[in-house]
């Protein structure tokens, strides 16, 4: 690899250099998020047809599923930055992991909240020990544990590295947790339909979900970059 190009990429590992770039990207993504959300909400609430079985309530899916996707995606990205931080010992990587956690936890909460409200009219109870909801709950605990560990350690370097290791251990465990919970759920609930599955995926429903997913993604990038700018200012 050309040493000049390697140097050029690692330039952004410096918080000072990354700071203005983060600001520009955040602004762009915030605008994109607003537009995508408007589009997604229009498709989801106006264009998509009423469902034959669930009526209007299924429209919660346009928030629930994208939020669940983001909660899992953000955790993986967080663990990725944690791994990069431990491997290359770059401060900014740890800051990125720290910045991602609150947004990830928020989307996990949203997924749980909307899942619960979807369960009430369709299944009669606010909480269902559905495989996905239970896994989401455990994911929330993993996020909170990450933030709690970092908050409990005074030395910033030890806090960064300890929470980074925890994130990686958690990431390795997430598939194991997911599959064991899914297996546990099928054993205990038998042939019941998962509440996270929409009855039939009309093209408009899929479009709405994708638009909202992209909107959440753009929002996450904007929020995380603004937060990492705050962290840079707090620490440098």
């Amino acid at each position, binding site marked *: 690899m050309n040493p000049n190009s390697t140097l050029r990429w690692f330039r952004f590992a410096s918080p000072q250099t990354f700071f203005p770039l983060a600001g520009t990207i955040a602004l762009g993504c915030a605008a994109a998020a607003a537009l995508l959300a408007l589009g997604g909400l229009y498709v989801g609430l106006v264009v998509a047809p009423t469902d034959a079985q669930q009526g209007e309530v299924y429209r919660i899916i346009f928030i629930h599923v994208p939020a669940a996707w983001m909660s899992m995606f953000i955790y993986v990205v967080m663990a990725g930055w944690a791994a990069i931080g*431990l491997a290359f010992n770059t401060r900014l990587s740890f800051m990125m992991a720290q910045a991602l956690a609150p947004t990830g936890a928020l989307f996990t909460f949203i997924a749980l909240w909307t899942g619960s409200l979807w369960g009430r009219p369709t299944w009669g109870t606010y909480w269902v020990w559905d495989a996905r909801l239970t896994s989401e709950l*455990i994911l929330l*605990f*993993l996020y*909170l*544990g990450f933030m*709690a*560990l970092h908050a*409990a*350690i005074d030395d910033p370097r*030890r806090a960064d*590295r*300890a929470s980074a*290791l*925890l994130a990686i*251990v*958690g990431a*390795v*465990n997430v598939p*194991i*947790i997911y599959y*064991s*919970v899914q*297996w*546990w759920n099928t*054993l205990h609930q038998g042939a019941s339909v998962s509440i996270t599955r929409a009855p039939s995926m009309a093209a408009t429903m899929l479009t709405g979900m994708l638009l909202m997913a992209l909107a959440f993604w753009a929002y996450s990038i904007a929020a995380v970059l603004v937060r990492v700018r705050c962290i840079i200012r707090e620490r440098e």
Partner: protein
Amino acid sequence: MLAVARTLVHRDLLLALRRRSDVATALLFFVIVASLFPLGVGAEPNLLRAISPGVIWVAALLSSMLSLGRLFAADHADGTLEQMLLGAAPLGVVAMAKCLAHWLVSGLPLVAIAPLIALQYDLAPGLYGVLALSLLLGTPVLSLIGAIGAALTLGLRGGGVLLALLVLPLYVPVLILGAGAVEMAGAGLQPDGQLLLLGALLVLAAAFSPWAIAAALRISME
């Protein structure tokens, strides 16, 4: 390397023997927690029989977690841990040895006591074997994964509760498989799937945890 491991296990067992009350307290906790559930849910025999695998397993989880604080605390306090970090023996081997000693003292006794609890809950006698086997396979995994958490929270204020928050989500697959094995057997089916998966988790934990524990110790001690 094996000699180092043997010395370490021997040393930890000796230390545990001198502090017998610490060990006994964790085991007593196991019994007390298991005794609380009937007081809470009522003494209806069918209900107790149905929940007994889960209750015993949750009690095992909590007891194992409580005893994790002891794993590194004493050595950290008197400086032995630093010596281990600086020493010639690979830190992974040290971690593995300490986990083994910890399991022999905190996990293995649970396997022996569990049938007594099962008796209290009127679990079918034929299931005692599966229960013991599931605990035999699962408790080492709890020790290994828990040790990662213990190493990360070394010397922190509020360490015990924080350790619980960190480690309990990671314990969930072991709980599901362990309790599930007994319930499966109770339903008249073969628990082979769960037990084999538990074995797989044990192999995975034994292979990767020492590395993670060593990394966590280095992070906490530098």
